[in-house]
């Protein structure tokens, strides 16, 4: 039984195709102004990758910031529910989940079945989300995909005072003028965003194991900073299910439940 999950994020739209209990394929496209169109593209791209036919999909569940705009979906679920199901599928031992997307971060506690317990915290400040790292990579003129490994090469810890993405950009520029090494600056960037997210996690109470999902989890520098802050290693999804697809996966799992697969 084939089901699909779509995560209509503010920056990227992700689609995951599931066959019964097995992950088939996933794809990501930029969330354009027309969310529905992006969702179609993401779905088709994922279908192509696993050579699956659109008409074989029994149920499509959509989640994410732009979910209401996707009219071809069968139903919607909250992002937090999708986070929980997706994370639990990959890491059944996870009891706390941190999801950091492009514009928003959230933390939730789940039970042994991947169901969200009654609380979660949402962080709608760009300085705590992917937008922060992206803006800094632009200010540093460094490819965002290399930010992680560069930060691991840092030799010195330097403080970052700005708490806002916009102000941090200016701070990074003046650090560059002061001839601070890019590696040290990038480490400071990761430490800063990790500090904010660690505070967020601590507020909800940490119950191990802790899983980290969302696009920003691909950044090994950020993950390293988080691990240092927490004093233990976070569980981060690896290929074939990359961290940014976990929420869409959660939606696909809920879709499967709906059609009793």
């Amino acid at each position, binding site marked *: 039984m084939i089901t699909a999950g779509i995560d209509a994020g503010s920056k990227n739209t992700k689609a995951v195709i599931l066959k019964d209990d097995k992950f088939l394929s996933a794809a990501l496209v930029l969330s354009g102004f027309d969310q529905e169109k992006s969702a179609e593209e993401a779905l088709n791209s994922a279908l192509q990758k696993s050579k699956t036919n659109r008409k074989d999909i029994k149920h499509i569940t959509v989640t994410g910031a732009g979910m209401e705009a996707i009219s071809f979906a069968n139903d919607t679920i909250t992002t937090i529910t999708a986070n929980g199901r997706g994370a639990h599928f990959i890491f059944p031992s996870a009891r706390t989940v941190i999801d950091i997307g492009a514009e928003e971060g959230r933390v939730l506690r789940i039970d042994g079945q991947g169901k969200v317990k009654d609380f979660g915290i949402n*962080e*709608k*400040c760009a300085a705590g989300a992917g937008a922060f790292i992206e803006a800094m990579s632009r200010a540093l003129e460094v490819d965002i995909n290399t930010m992680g490994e560069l930060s691991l090469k840092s030799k010195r810890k330097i403080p970052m005072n700005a708490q806002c993405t916009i102000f941090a950009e200016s701070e990074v520029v003046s650090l560059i003028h002061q001839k601070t090494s890019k590696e040290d600056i990038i480490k400071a960037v990761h430490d800063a965003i990790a*500090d904010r997210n660690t505070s967020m996690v601590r*507020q*909800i109470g940490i119950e191990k194991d802790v899983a980290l999902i969302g696009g920003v989890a691909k950044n090994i520098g950020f993950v390293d900073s988080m691990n240092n802050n927490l004093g233990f290693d976070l569980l981060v999804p690896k290929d074939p299910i990359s961290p940014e697809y976990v929420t869409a996966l959660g939606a696909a799992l809920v879709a499967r439940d709906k059609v009793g697969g």
Partner: protein
Amino acid sequence: MTKANYGYKDGSGEYYITIDTDLCNSCGKCVEACPEGVLEMAEDELDPLGDEIIAIVSDDHRKKIKYSCAPCKPGGELIKLPCVEACKPGAIKHSW
């Protein structure tokens, strides 16, 4: 009633610590009570020609007050806060 509001409103909400500088009796108990070093005793900013020393939120913390105070507010709920409890005249209030 002279009110100093320290904190901010950002994408995730509004977080202010308000200190009524007229009520503050400069006892310093709030500074001792705070486990994070958020508060300190300093010259009253609002009265530069005067000589009073009162409690203020230290400069380092003003921009990240939500994170600084998070350890005393698990689950994001307002519970008995050490600084508020320590202040007899009731000069300190948290908005979240």
